[in-house]
C-alpha cells in the first residue's frame, strides 16, 4: 500500500514538472532520427512525424491532458521564434545564387505560392471541409515555424497548420521526383527551387541528399516563400474570408 502510494507521489511530482514533457519529446525525436537513419533517409520515415506519433500516443495512453504536456514542452516550443530568425543564415547564403536568375525565380515563387493556396483551399472546400480546416491550409507550404506564426495572425489553429505543413513536406519529398521527371525538368536549380516552394524544409533536405545545387536552391525557395507568405497570406486570407 505504502509502496503504491509512493509511486503515485513520484508520478504526480514528475508529471507536474516540465521534466517529463521535455524527456518524452526529446526521446521520441531521437527514436524518430534513429528510424530515419536506419531507413536510409526514406521520406516516409520522417523523424518529426514519428516523434509526433509517439508523443501523441504516449500522452493519450497515460491520459495526460495536452495542456499539462504543453506546459512542460513550451520550453522547446519557445525556441521556434529563434529558429525562424536563424533561417536568415541559409537565405543569406542562397542570395548569391539568386543573381542573374531573379526573374524566373521570383515569378516561380509567386506562382507556386498562389497555386498552393488556391488548390489546397479549393479542393478541401469542394470536398466539404469546414472553415477551420481550410483556414489552416493557407500556410501549409510554408516552413512550419513561419506557418504557425501566420496561422496565429489570421486566427486559425497553429496545430492544424503544423500538421498540414509536416504532411505537405513529407508528401512533397516523396512525390517531387515523379512530378519533375514527368515534366522533363532537367536543370538542378529549377528542380530544387520547385521542391523548396512546394515542400519547404522536408523537401529541402531531400533535395540536398539528391544534388547540392538543388539543395541550395530549395533552401533559398523555402526562405523566400516564408517571408513572402508572411506578408501575403494574411492579405489573401482576408480577401477570401470577407
Amino acid at each position, binding site marked *: 500500500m505504502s509502496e503504491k502510494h509512493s509511486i503515485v507521489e513520484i508520478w504526480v511530482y514528475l508529471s507536474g514538472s516540465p521534466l517529463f514533457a521535455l524527456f518524452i519529446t526529446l526521446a521520441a525525436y531521437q527514436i524518430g532520427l534513429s528510424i530515419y537513419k536506419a531507413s536510409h533517409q526514406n521520406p516516409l520515415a520522417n523523424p518529426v512525424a514519428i516523434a509526433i506519433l509517439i*508523443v501523441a500516443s504516449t500522452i493519450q495512453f497515460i491520459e495526460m491532458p495536452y495542456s499539462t504536456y504543453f506546459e512542460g514542452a513550451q520550453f522547446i516550443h519557445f*525556441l521556434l521564434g529563434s529558429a525562424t530568425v536563424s533561417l*536568415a543564415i541559409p537565405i543569406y547564403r542562397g542570395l548569391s545564387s539568386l543573381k542573374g536568375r531573379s526573374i524566373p525565380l521570383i515569378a516561380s515563387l509567386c506562382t*507556386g505560392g498562389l497555386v498552393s493556396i488556391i488548390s489546397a483551399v479549393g*479542393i478541401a472546400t469542394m470536398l466539404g471541409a469546414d472553415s477551420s480546416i481550410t483556414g489552416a491550409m493557407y500556410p501549409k507550404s510554408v516552413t512550419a515555424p513561419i506557418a504557425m506564426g501566420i496561422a496565429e495572425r489570421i486566427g486559425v489553429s497553429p*496545430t492544424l497548420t503544423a500538421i498540414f505543413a509536416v504532411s505537405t513536406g513529407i508528401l512533397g519529398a516523396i512525390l517531387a521526383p515523379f512530378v519533375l521527371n514527368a*515534366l522533363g525538368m532537367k536543370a538542378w536549380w529549377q528542380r530544387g527551387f520547385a521542391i523548396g516552394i512546394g515542400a519547404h524544409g522536408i523537401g529541402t533536405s531531400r533535395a540536398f541528399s539528391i544534388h547540392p545545387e538543388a539543395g541550395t536552391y530549395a533552401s533559398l525557395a523555402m526562405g523566400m516563400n516564408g517571408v513572402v507568405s508572411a506578408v501575403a497570406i494574411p492579405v489573401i486570407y482576408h480577401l477570401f474570408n470577407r
Partner: protein
Amino acid sequence: MIFGLVQILLFQSLGELVSKFLLPTLPGPVIGLVLLVLWLVLRKGINPDLAMVGDGFSQYLGLLFVPAAVGVVLFLPQLKANAWAIISALIGSVILTIASSALVARLLSRKESHE
C-alpha cells in the same frame, strides 16, 4: 556559441518590437529574420558563432514544432470527419504547386537565354 545566440535573440527582440508597434500583421520572428538578412548583407558575411547557432537550429528545426503538433490529439475527431478532403487537398496541392513552380522557372529562364 553564446555570441551567436545573443545575436539571434537580439534580432528576435527587434522583430517583436517592430511587430508590436509598426507592423502588427507580420509575426515578430519573420521581421527579425528579414532584419538579420539585411544586417548580413550590410556586413557582407556571417561570423562563425552565428553560423554555428544557425546551423544547429536548422539541423533540428523539426524537433521544435513537435510540442505544438502533438496538439493534434485535440483535433482527432475533426480530422477523421474531414479525412478524405484533407488527404485529397494535400496531395493535389503539393503536385500542382511543385509542377507550376517548376514550369514557370523553366519557361522564363528559356526566354532569358534567347534574348
